[in-house]
């Protein structure tokens, strides 16, 4: 609260201009930084999609972390640096083991758009890229990025694959901490596993056949 009040006082001139059209203020986010997280869990991997919307009164504070050279534009390097900064404020555990995040994609609107309270920063992180073991899992995500300014939404996306089932979702009251319990049912002989098994069986046969063939050639 103290930080918000301090920020409001610091940006009073801009707010006064803004308040000249009072109802306009209510049309968009004001003193909150909305962090909306969607967790996509599929057999091929787990991704985190985060949409960030800074309100008008907190945009300066957020932009101070992004536009490090204060030139009024957000460069690719600045965008990447901010995405990495936010990544450090996220702690992710899968089955009680800390897992690292990899930045997969990002999209930053212009600085002027962000200052109006309608610009949305979109970040995508990969939690697991590729296959992981079947069975019951628990994914826990804690978001500690700018807690004094932020409000949160945390949701599991409805899995596209029928082999993933979300069995429970839990959050703390403000949704900065979320936990998803899910099961992944991998078929005993999935096509990939079947291919590996078939290759392992076929390999000795091919080797023996090659040896026999080689002997036959030598004899000839």
């Amino acid at each position, binding site marked *: 609260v103290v930080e918000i009040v301090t920020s409001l006082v610091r940006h009073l001139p801009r707010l006064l201009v803004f308040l000249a059209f*009072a109802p306009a*203020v209510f*049309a968009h986010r*004001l003193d*909150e930084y909305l962090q909306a997280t969607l967790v996509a869990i599929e057999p091929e991997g787990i991704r985190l999609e985060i949409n960030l919307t800074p309100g008008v009164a907190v945009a300066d504070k957020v932009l101070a972390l992004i536009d490090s050279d204060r030139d009024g534009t957000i460069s690719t390097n600045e965008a990447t640096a901010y995405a990495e900064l936010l990544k450090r404020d996220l702690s992710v555990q899968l089955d009680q083991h800390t897992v690292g995040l990899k930045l997969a994609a990002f999209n930053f609107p212009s600085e002027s758009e962000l200052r109006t309270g309608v610009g949305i920063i979109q970040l995508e992180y990969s939690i697991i890229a590729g296959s992981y073991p079947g069975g019951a899992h628990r994914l826990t995500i804690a978001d500690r990025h700018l807690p004094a300014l932020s*409000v949160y*939404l945390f949701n599991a996306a*409805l899995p596209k694959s029928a082999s993933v089932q979300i069995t429970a979702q839990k959050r703390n*009251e403000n949704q900065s901490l979320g936990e998803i319990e899910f099961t992944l049912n991998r078929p005993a002989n999935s096509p990939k596993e079947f291919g590996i098994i078939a290759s392992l069986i076929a390999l000795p046969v091919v080797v023996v056949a090659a040896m026999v063939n080689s002997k036959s050639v030598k004899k000839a």
Partner: protein
Amino acid sequence: MKDHLQMKAGLLLSVLGITAMLCMGGRGVFAEDSASAGKASEDIAAAGKKFLASLDDTQRGKVVFDFKDAAQRKRWSNLPTGIVHRAGLRMGDLTKAQRDAVLAVLAAALSPQGYEKVIEIMDADETLKKSGGNNPMFGRDEYYVSFLGQPSTTDPWMIQFGGHHLGLNITLAGEHGTLTPSHTGVQPSIYELEGKTIRPLGRETDKAFALLSSLDDAQRKQAILGFQMHDLVLGPGRDGETIQPEGIKGSDLTEKQREMLLDLASEWTGIMNEAAAKAKMDELKEHVTDTWFAWSGPTEKGAAAYFRVQGPTVIIEYAPQRLGGDATKHIHTIYRDPTNEYGAKWWKS
């Protein structure tokens, strides 16, 4: 043995007879639905053509987009047009006859109560404008209309109408019609106009509280989410996304409560004309036991609370907005069908 065969033959004939009766009886009902849908489709296309005929060439060039224009299809928002630009024709730039023609298109595509809701949302924005020193960002003039494709009773086409707190995406494909995804919202949620008190989203608010108060303690425990909801999860801009449902499942509600749930959903499905609304409601009824109701926030009637209705073919969210004022006076809602956004199942191969 002979008796057994006779019994089997008798049973077969009975089954065939009942099937034939059902088919004949059913044909009557389906024929009626089809005729109603066909008539609606003709009326909407006719109103659309009449509106286009009222325009000059320049205006027509601005209002009609290619049906496959994906950028225009997604160009809708809860925000005022001064913040998020809409394309098409602005109501304030049209003549009275042209504006009436636009409203006639909406009247043909929507139900009477759906049309009334749209008008009341725009009137609320006019009220907002007047109460805010005539801020040019708001008001009845700041709504835009556009068509994707040409009005037709056979080929798919789309009517977009929206501005602040309104994003109608009406896709029509032959006798089919859908409103998903669409946004309704309001600010102020209650106002006086010509001596009458108007609540554009009043029925959905009241029905949601009635459903909540019908739940017993065990049901409430399931329905009420133990965390704050600050906004819509799947609002404008979140096309193609679906979340894991939460709350209380339709199968855990009583028959009466399931009816209340469907009645609540009808406040969104029923915005469309009778034929399209009935088709959608039939679909919802089919899945009602798999449809969830979730609540977040205070439970006292009229308080600022979030709720969600989610089934296999529907997502409805209702979220009071805390953007600097009384959250009960500023409401955002979203209506989606994750299986048929923009009617894609009827035209996308």
